[in-house]
Each structure stands twice: as C-alpha cells, then as structure tokens.
C-alpha cells in the first residue's frame, strides 16, 4: 500500500478535469443560476489538462512519465511474487505517444467547450441543469480519455474507457431533440453490448496471461507464467493454447473498441447519434471519443506487439470494410453532420489501417493519422457550428454552404482546408502526409490488396469531400449580388460577434490545422 509512489504532477492531466468537475458541481451548489461559469471552469480545466500534458511530449526514446508504480519491494511484500523479472509495473505510464493523445484530447475538448459556449449571459431558470451537467459530463469524458491513454492495467483501462463513454451517451441524450433520443438509444445499446464484450475480452486476457497488466511482459507470460509460482501449493500449468486465448482477447478488445471508433460493422450508431446530438456534442463524439478509443486500442496492441504477431487479418478486414462503407454512404448525404458521421466511419478505417502491422511503425502511424483526422474534423465541425448560427434553419444541409466563399472567405478557407485535409489533397498537406504515413506500414507488411483497397477508397473519399467543397466555392445562382447576401453577411457578423468563444474555438482549431499543414513534422515528431 505504501509502496505506491504517487506523483501528482504526472497525474495532473487527469486530475485537473476531475477537479474542474468537482468545482463545477460546487459552484452550481452555491449559485445554481449561472450560465457561463460552468463552461469557463470546464474550459480552464481542459486548458490546464492540455498544459499539463505538454511536458510529456518532450519524452523521447521510450522514456515515460509514470506513477502508481509497484516497486519490486512492494511486489515482494504483496501476495503475488510473480512479477519478479519485471522491475516496475505502473498503473499510469505516459510516454510521448500517450502524452500526445492526451494533449489532443484536451485541445479537442477545449474546442468543443468553446463551441458549446452559451450565447446568453442571462441567468438560467432554477430548474434547468443543462449547463453544469454538460460541463461535468464533458470533463468526465475528457478525464476518462486522458487516463486511458496512460493506463497500463486492465482495471484502470476498463474504468477509464467507461468513463470516457458513459457521459457521452448522456450528453447525446441531453441534446434534447427527438432524434437525439434515437441516437442515444442506439449508442447506448451498442455501447453496452460492446462493453460487455470488452469485459469478456479483458477476462480472457487475464485468464490467458494471469496478469492484470497490459504490458508486453504480461503478453509474453501467456506461455505459462504460473508454472514457477513458488508459494502455491499446487501448480497450474498453462498450455500453449493460451496464445489462442490471447488472440481472442485481443480480437474482442478490438471489436469492443471498434464500436467507439465507429468501425464497420460496429458503426451503426454513428450517423444517428451525430445527427441527433447538437454540434458541439457531435464534435466531441468525433474527436475526443475517437482519441479515447484509439488510445485504448493502442495500449492493448502495444502489449500484444511483443508477441511478434506481424499482422492481423481481422484489422485489415475491418479497415477495408469501414473505409468502403463509410465513403460510399457519405457520398449520399446531404446533411453535413451525417456526412461527417459517415466520413468518421471511413476515416476510422484509415486510422486502424496501419495497425495491420502491430509494430512501433504501425502504432505511430495510426496515432498520426488519428491526429490529422481529429484536427481536420474539429475545424469542419467548428465551421458547421458557426454556420448554424448564421442559418439556423438549414445550416446542416450542403446547400447552405453555397457561396460561403463569397460571404465568409476566411471561414470558407478554413473549411476548404479541413475538407482537403480529410480528402488527403493539398492544400491540406497534413491529410496527405497522414495518408502516406498510414499506408507505409501496410506496404511494409506487404498487404498489397489492402493498399489497393485503400487507394480506391482515397478516391471515393475525395469525391465525398469535394461534393461539399463544391458547394463552398460555388456562388449560388441569383445571389451573386443584391441585398439578401449583404444582409445575411451582416447578420452573420453580428451573430459571430455574439459568440466570440465559438469563433475562438474555430480559430484555435484552424490555426493548428494551418500550422501542421505547413510543417507536418511538428505533428509527426510528437509521436517520435
């Protein structure tokens, strides 16, 4: 018990959101009619988490920031003298990759909070709990994401993952539209079943390896770690079939996390939930949730990598299915949020694509692609949110974006950059680099067919995003001149002024996108 060394500075990225959460509740107790304060607290907490994650980025060469470590002495004193060979096992272990994902999650959450920023300063009625609850749930999900990226044991891993999921379900439901309930329901049942399978997978992992840790050593011990247990009266010999169990465990975990990543065939909730929830929540689903999912997946896969398993057919199948279905469906959407939802499905395929090579290369590539996706998607959603301000009626249809270039060139520029990044075309160089990165491990493992499927999907993807981009650059007929346009522009400007936080979120995300597009190395180097 006392063997646990707790380094609070290291834990700060996780503790700050939790602290913020508690603070929001406390403030709400004191003054329940505040509207903006909960968001302000949440924003600060997210900002703090981001800042706290920054020191973790400088880590190179496999060194980590860790805490909750079971030292050798502690293990010796404990009931299980089984992890003798291991110098140290920690419940929190963040390396550069984990730190980067934490940072990405924190920044994404910050943008989401900015987008959700309430428009009015008016005090809310006493019976409304919307603002503090939303802030609390956002922070909780962020905390879960941050923790899961650094977790190394199944307990923390499971709980953090659930912490990152459950609040989101509630958030979707809280969006309050009729379709939101449908989305929340679908999200709920899928997430429950996936979580059950996830737990089953974890149980299998524990059964096979005998270790509650998601470390390479644990994976390696699945050959029979308990044979030499000295203290036990009898010995349990684990036969070599446990390798199969590890395999099944891994696959179940992939499936369980695949739900969160929106991989086909675990994707069905995605369009419903995105379309049902409000834009900030959809943004959250599309960014922070994906970061959490991939972080969770990478924790497991990095452990499994030690087994030297070079490739996973199931990942290849999932990736190609996701890409294809997502793109084909996105091609038909006229609602931009649904389009982005299906695009998420397709991009999830790209995210797991490099994982066919469970190696440092594949893991890094996957994370890189995820980051490029997150940055671009954030910008796209932010533009959607801002546009929805201007055109509350039809802001979600592609047609609403016609002539955006004329009306709001900067916003249109940001959107164009985001869309081209998602499509993997310059000027969205980062998307292009992401595609290169994602394809590299595939090629390195010699998966020709998968590479060709990916290439074909790159094409369909371009078609998807260009459909939207076309509207952005096209001047609507009959609106090229005249009053309505100007009037709308003016009203847009007014509403823009009314929501500086939202614009700030857009600017923040766009700035990141521009910077990494000009110098992709900034992003790529984060992952070592």
């Amino acid at each position: 018990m006392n063997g646990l060394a707790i380094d609070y500075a290291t834990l700060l990225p996780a503790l700050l959101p939790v602290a913020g959460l508690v603070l929001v509740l406390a403030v709400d107790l004191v003054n329940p009619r505040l509207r903006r304060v909960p968001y302000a607290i949440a924003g600060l907490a997210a900002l703090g988490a981001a800042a706290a994650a920054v020191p973790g980025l400088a880590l190179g060469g496999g060194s980590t920031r860790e805490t909750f470590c079971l030292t050798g002495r502690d293990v010796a004193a404990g009931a299980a003298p089984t992890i003798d060979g291991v110098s140290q096992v920690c419940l929190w272990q963040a390396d550069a990759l984990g730190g980067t994902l934490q940072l990405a999650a924190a920044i994404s959450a910050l943008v989401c909070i900015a987008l959700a920023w309430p428009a009015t300063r008016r005090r809310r009625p006493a019976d409304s709990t919307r603002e503090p609850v939303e802030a609390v749930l956002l922070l909780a999900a962020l905390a879960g994401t941050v923790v899961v990226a650094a977790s190394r044991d199944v307990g923390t891993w499971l709980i953090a993952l659930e912490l990152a999921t459950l609040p989101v379900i509630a958030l979707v439901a809280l969006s309050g539209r009729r379709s939101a309930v449908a989305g929340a329901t679908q999200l709920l049942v899928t997430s429950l079943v996936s979580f059950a399978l996830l737990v089953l997978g974890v149980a299998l992992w524990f059964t096979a390896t005998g270790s509650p840790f998601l470390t390479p050593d644990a994976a390696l011990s699945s050959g029979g770690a308990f044979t030499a247990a000295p203290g036990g009266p009898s010995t349990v010999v684990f036969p070599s079939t446990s390798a199969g169990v590890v395999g099944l465990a891994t696959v179940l975990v992939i499936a369980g996390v695949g739900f969160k990543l929106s991989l086909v065939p675990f994707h069905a909730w995605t369009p419903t939930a995105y379309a049902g929830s409000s834009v900030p929540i959809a943004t959250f689903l599309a960014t922070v949730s994906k970061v959490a999912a991939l972080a969770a997946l990478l924790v497991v896969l990095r452990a499994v990598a030690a087994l030297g398993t070079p490739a996973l057919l199931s990942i290849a199948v999932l990736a190609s299915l996701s890409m294809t279905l997502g793109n084909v469906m996105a091609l038909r959407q006229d609602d931009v949020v649904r389009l982005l939802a299906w695009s998420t499905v397709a991009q999830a395929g790209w995210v797991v694509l490099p994982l066919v090579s469970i190696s440092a290369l594949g893991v890094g590539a996957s994370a890189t692609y995820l980051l490029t996706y997150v940055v671009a998607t954030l910008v796209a959603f932010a533009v959607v949110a801002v546009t929805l301000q201007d055109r509350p009626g039809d802001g979600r249809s592609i047609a609403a974006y016609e002539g955006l270039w004329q009306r709001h060139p900067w916003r249109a520029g940001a959107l164009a950059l985001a869309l081209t990044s998602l499509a993997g075309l310059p000027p969205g160089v980062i998307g292009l680099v992401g595609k290169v990165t994602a394809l590299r491990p595939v090629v390195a493992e010699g998966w020709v067919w998968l590479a060709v499927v990916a290439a074909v999907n790159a094409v369909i993807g371009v078609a998807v995003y260009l459909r939207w981009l076309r509207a952005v650059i096209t001047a609507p007929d009959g609106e090229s001149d005249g009053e309505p346009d100007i009037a709308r522009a003016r009203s847009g400007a007014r509403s823009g002024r009314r929501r500086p936080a939202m614009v700030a979120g857009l600017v923040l995300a766009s700035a990141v996108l521009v910077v990494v597009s000009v110098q992709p190395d900034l992003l790529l180097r984060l992952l070592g």
Partner: protein
Amino acid sequence: MALTLMLLLPLLAAIALIAIPGESTVERGIALGSTVVTAVLAVVVVSGRHEVDVPWIRSLGVRWHFGVDGVSAALVLLTALLTVAVVAHALSGPIPRGGTGSTFLGCVLLVEAGALATFMARDAILFFIAFEVVLVPMWVLVRRFGDDHVADETRADAAGRFVLFTVLGSTLMLVGILFLVHHQGTSDLAVLAERHGAGLSRPLQVAIAAMLLLGLGIKVPLWPLHTWLPSAHTIAPTAGSVLLAAVLLKMGTYGIVRLAVPTVPEGVARLSPVLALLGVVGILWGGLACLVERDLKRLIAYSSVAHMGFVALAIASGSETGLQAALFGNIAHGVVAALLFFVVGDLKEQWGSSDLHVARAALRDKAPRFGLALVVGLAAALGLPGLVSFWGEFLALYAAWSPAPDRPVALLRACVVLGAVGLALAAAYALRVARIVWAGEGSDAAVGAAAEPVADARGPRWAVVMVLVVVIVVLGVLPHLLLGLSDTATTGLLSGLGVSP
C-alpha cells in the same frame, strides 16, 4: 535560394490572390508580376542548375529537396513560361464566368507552383505531394470557371472525373512509391536511381513498376485510362485546357521517366510491351476518334491521347534515344497543345461552342492571324517535319524499332508500323479541321451569327500565340536546343549512374 523563391512566389501570390475578395487591379499586377518573376527565376534556376536540400518531414524521411537537371530543365522552363502566357492571355480578355478573377488567377498560380514543384522534386514522396498540389486548383478551374454553355452536371462530371481519375492514379503511385521506399530504405530519387533496382527481386520490381505505371499512366493518359481527358479539356476554360495539356499531362510521362525507369529498370522492362501496346492503341484510338469528333476541343484532347501514345512508345523502347524522344515529345506536345488550345479557346469564346458541324465563316481570309496560328498548330500536330512534334515522333519510332536489348523487338516493331499509321491518321484529322475551320468547308451554309467572321486575335493574345508559333518553328528547326538539355541526363537515368545536375 532562387529555387525556393521560385517555388514559393507563385504559391504566396496565389494565396494572396485567393484572399483578395472581388476584382481589383492589384490582382492583375500580382498575378502578372509573380509569374514573370517566376519565369525569370526559372531561367536563372535552370541555367545555374540550382538545388535546395533541407529536412522537411523528418519522421518520414522526406526532405525539402528540389533541383533541376537535364530531365526536368525543359519542363520547368515550359511551365514557368507558359504560365506567363496563360496569365497574359487571361488578363487580356474577360475572366470566365463563375467567380472572381482573383480566384481564377490564384488557381492558375497554384497549378504552376504544383507543377514546378513536381518537376523539381528530388524525393519520391515529395514528388507525390507536389503531384497532388495541382489537383484542387485545377478542379476549381474546371468546376467553377468551366464552359458555362453546358449543364452544371456536365461540368461536375468533367471536373469530378479529372480529380477522381487522377487521385486514383496518384494513390496507386503512392503505394508503389512506398513499396519502393520501404525496400530501398530511402526516398531520395538520386539514390534510388543510383541503386538502379539493385536489391529488389524481379517480381517485386514488376509489382512496383506496375503500380507506378498504372498510377502515372492515368495522368499521361494511357489508353484505356484516358476517358477523363476529353471531358476535362472540353469543359475547362482556355487557361485550364492549356495548363492541363501542356503541363499536367507532362507530369505523368515525366513521372514515368523520373520515377519508374531508373528505379525499377527490370520491372519497367518487363512491362514495356504492355506500355508500348497501350501507347500504340492510344495513338490509333485517339487518331480515329479525332476523325469523327464533332467538338473541336474534344478533338484536340483525343489528339493529345495520340501524341502521348508516342511518348509512351518511346519510353517503352528503353533506349537512350527513346528517352530523349520521350522528353522531346513531351515538350513538343506541350507547346503545340498550348497553341491549339489558345486558338481554339479564343474561337470558342467567340463562337459560343466548338462544334465542328456548325457551319461557320472560314478563318482563312477573315481572321488570318487565327488562321495562321491554327494552321501552324495543326501542321505541328500532324508531325510535320520542321516543326517541333516531328522530332519526338520520328525519334520515338526509331527508338521503338531498335529498343534496348531486353525488350521484345518484334512486338515493338509492329508497334512502330501501327504508330506510323497513326501519323497518317494525324494528317487526316488535322487537315479535316483545317478544311472545315480554316478553309471553310461548308461555310456557305453558315447563317446568322455563325456567318460573321470572328474578330481576329490582337494585343497580348496575338503576342502569346505568335510566341508559341515561333517556338514551334524554332524548336523544329533547331532541336538541339532541347535535346542538348537532356542529353547526359538520360544516359544517367538508364545506366544507373544517377543524374548529376
């Protein structure tokens, strides 16, 4: 320094232009000024054989590595100078409907920047990235500024086809590049060329070469991957057509020469029969299609397919003469197609369509400048000796007749005969156009506005056209000017010595 400036100048100017809302005189100054300065820089860079090499994306091993050598020098010059022509041409007339002039010019400049970067990239992945840069601006040019006489769906179809075909090609090429880079451990083109395929097994070479050729073949375009070209050409505004034909298509053949031939020689050798056959089918296919095509711009597009077929045939020969012929043919087609598209684009602007079946007044006496330019362009298109295309095509035939030792001689010789038939087809369609447009076949039936002669070219547009005519003649009479540029470079590419700038 000059090199980086030359790459960044059009890029920055394009961004500035796109950011400028609406029409203003500033945009004209920016556009023209930046292209002219870029052209001057291009001359400096080419003559000084500049090179720049700094790290860019370290984690991918991609370097900001650009340079000029014999293979690319002519293309760099062509791109830079032709963009000046395009901008001058665009500024001296109305901007095509569909958007502001600044956006239009910005897109033109972006295309220039991308093309220059492509031709100068010395790193395989950098090449790919630069290759992609031109897509979106070109798409905008076609989609937004395209022919507004046709339905919106037609424009969408043309623009979409262009982008989707090209993206498919470039992504396949990327897969090929990644295979190559993975197995060779470097993406530096010079190193890859020096290795000359060493360390790659034959099946692997064939696979890589297949992916590279397929990907680049779409851009060339090789038959049967060409169907994007006619519609894109037809719809695109004059500037778009010119850039498409003169610059973008060249990226495909240049890519094959730069990327595939030196790095996976065995694979290319294995696939050269296919390449030659597709090239020849393209020659005949394009030539035949031109015989009955009604739309003038489409016709020129098909003739591009035929001409690029000669280039493909030359590359398939694998000999040094072949590469020289291919590079020469590249430039030749670039200049000739540019001239034809300038002329035809202007005509279409006045005619309102480019349908050959509409009876119109003859150009010969009523618009002698257009007439002269058109006739010279057509003469060049049919490969008239003394004009620029002759050398590329004749040398291509020669090269294919006596290919490198590891190529199938009999097949290539059959291809030569068929390719020569293509020369006759070229004559047939070129003269068909001349007969209808220049000499006025059926012009008696012209009624209404069509019977009115078109206003002749004047001012900058005439200057642009005239310069191209002069270039066509001069290069036709003095082919050394080009062949000398690429002479040592091709030797290097084929022998694996690498290309020293």
